[in-house]
């Protein structure tokens, strides 16, 4: 038994060195040299300033921007606190929760449920109360940092954005088309619109 103690200690230290330090260092050096953008977090610059990462969603509330999905990451799209809502299908909070409910003074309990989110979405975009809306518009993503929305969601927001920017709905829809990423190889995953890239494209054509 004690005979196995030396190999145990030495092997753990050796593998710690190899897998815990040498391997990550090797990957870091190669990626820094060959793929500096990706290894640095795919950051996007505008006018010399970093405005975000193309992989990480950010909050948008102004009518002239497309809005992302609701988020549970920190207070919303906190890139250092990724999280889903972790509320189950029969959770009353998930379905009927009300943000800033005056009746419950405890702000921890202030949570916009799907019902409230759907009402807000319809009001913002001038949709009829009976119009079905895409699920991604009113559900929180797993990471809370989902950079994309579904193309259907983007198209429903297009008239609002066009009005706020005083451009034609067609112009906005064209930009949505240009910023839609289809399924990889036409097969994998689902189509989505990168909200940050779309909003940057909007700003570029119409300040």
């Amino acid at each position: 038994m004690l005979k196995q103690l030396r190999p145990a200690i030495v092997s753990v230290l050796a593998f710690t060195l190899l897998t815990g330090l040498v391997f990550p260092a090797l990957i870091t050096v190669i990626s820094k040299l060959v793929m500096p953008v990706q290894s640095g977090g795919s950051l996007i610059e505008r006018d010399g300033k970093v405005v975000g990462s193309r992989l990480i969603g950010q909050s948008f509330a102004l009518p002239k921007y497309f809005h992302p999905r609701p988020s549970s990451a920190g207070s919303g799209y906190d890139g250092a606190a990724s999280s889903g809502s972790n509320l189950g299908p029969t959770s009353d909070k998930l379905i009927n929760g009300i943000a800033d409910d005056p009746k419950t003074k405890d702000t921890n309990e202030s949570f916009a449920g799907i019902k409230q989110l759907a009402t807000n979405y319809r009001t913002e975009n001038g949709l009829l109360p009976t119009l079905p809306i895409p699920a991604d518009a009113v559900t929180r993503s797993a990471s809370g940092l989902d950079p994309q929305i579904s193309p259907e969601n983007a198209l429903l927001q297009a008239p609002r954005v066009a009005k706020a920017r005083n451009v034609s709905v067609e112009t906005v829809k064209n930009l949505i088309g240009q910023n839609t990423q289809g399924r990889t190889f036409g097969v994998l995953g689902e189509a989505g619109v990168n909200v940050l890239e779309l909003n940057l494209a909007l700003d570029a054509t119409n300040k």
Partner: protein
Amino acid sequence: MTPNGLFQIALFCAVLLLSVKPLGAYMARVFEGERTLLSPALSPLENGLYKLFGVSKDDDQTWVQYAFSLLAFSLVGLLLTYVFLRLQGMLPFNPQGYGARQMPADLAFNTSASFTTNTNWQSYAPDYTLSYFSNMVALAIHNWMSAAAGMAVAIALVRGIARRNANGIGNFWVDATRSILYILAPICLVYALFLVAQGVPQNFSAYTQVTTLEGTKQTLAQGPVASQEAIKMLGTNGGGFFNANSAHPFENPTPLTNLIQMLSIFLIPAALTYTFGKMVGNTKQGWALLGAMFALFIIGAGVCYNAEAAGNPLVHALGVPGGNMEGKETRFGIANSALFAVVTTDASCGAVNAMHDSFTPIGGLVPLLNILSGECIFGGVGAGLYGMLMFAILAVFIAGLMVGRTPEYIGKKIEGYEVKMAMLAVLVLAASILGFAALGANGNLPTDGKTTLAALNQFPATAYGSASDTFYGATYNNINNSGPHGLSEILYAFTSATGNNGSAFAGITANTPFYNVTLGLAMLVGRFLMIIPLLAIAGSLAKKKYTPSNKGTFPTDSGTFVAVLCGTIVIVGALTYFPVLALGPVVEHYLMNAGKTF
């Protein structure tokens, strides 16, 4: 369910099955000590390591020596990680300045047990708890070492079946070293670079502060993610660099990385069945085990995808039709989220690309059942094969009882000792899951009345790191959902820990002394009280002489055997838990359809 979704699942299966034979044959060569393509490059390093460890590669160990080696290896690793985590404030690569305040003793125990046992349960949110050093060194080393230990145990058991009249079952140090050098390292090298190319960060920068288009501040977490992500998936570990795990766009940025991540979970467990067939001299035996794994996997995938695609009637009633998108990413959609959930829980990986806590009741029941079945449906790297062999032994025993013959498995008589050991492993798992879950659902501990769970849940948590100061009262208050879903959260936690899976119904607040300690114990029980009986079986089988098959032998490479094996797994592995499942996900399903909320 959409045709495209089904096609993506079929594509996944096709690529997986095509990789089984080449990788399985290669691994058989590695563990038999034969020369491989990589030998010229790696054998000097390999031999140097043996010299350093002070072991001889021809030293054949008995099962007791083999078990002691594994236990010593795991214990040293566990202690090292515990020390690293507690001292992270004094160690390098810590731009965010995280210290022992974020890592109290109970959490450090839980976390070191978790990574040593290949569980990778995370009671904490890594984004605001761990330094880069803690992630990369203290934890990721176990992604390699625990995977290697798992493979070693599986190969030792295979040798027990293959060898005749032998005392030894191989050498642990050799098996573990070869696993890392010849199997894990070459694949991870290519894999990590592929991930970076797709957008997974790999740097040591501090978190990046940006000003968004609307002028608010956003903090982007960074780190050496890709090098850890590769082994996290390939070693079926599953411990995320970030809280959201493989749902985080920095861990799993594209549908292509998602496909590769799912494949890399199943890759080694699937190929090991071929390695097994090759080493026992009859590859049909390996295909039979793979057949049983595959049948149970595909049923689970179908049921889960169907439930998630059908969605939540409570949400449909609000004018939001379609599948359940709560806790799912747009780029993956329903099909890939359901498939990932089934893959990660069949294999004891535990990485997630969607939040299982927000799945529909039946969609969430499938991952739970997968883990409850003993993590043998592909299972963890190595752990899946030895789990499946344990069920194979029980299956031939049950079949033997039906016809009144002494059961045999691949030329070895299965007698009282083997069956007792296999049953011991099964019963220990059930006792740990049900016992601890009962405790969690009923426990009541003292509290200082000052620190509340709500404060723990808040970000940035004011009480974070002071978890040891109080016991937080009733343990059933730690759940995030009320009603039957709350029971599911507690049951899932102890199932995941005991099964060494590591995924969670993540709403539960596990970072309190009660859950950290009990879950940590459940992980150690689930890992080592399964491995030790199986190594005992290996030792006992290796000593036996070969019994040639005759007309009365139940052929274990036939379709009938596959069916009996699946039946054994479902009956022994899963039915044990039927009562508690009825009170959790099953009753929730009916209540959801009746429009009830909690």
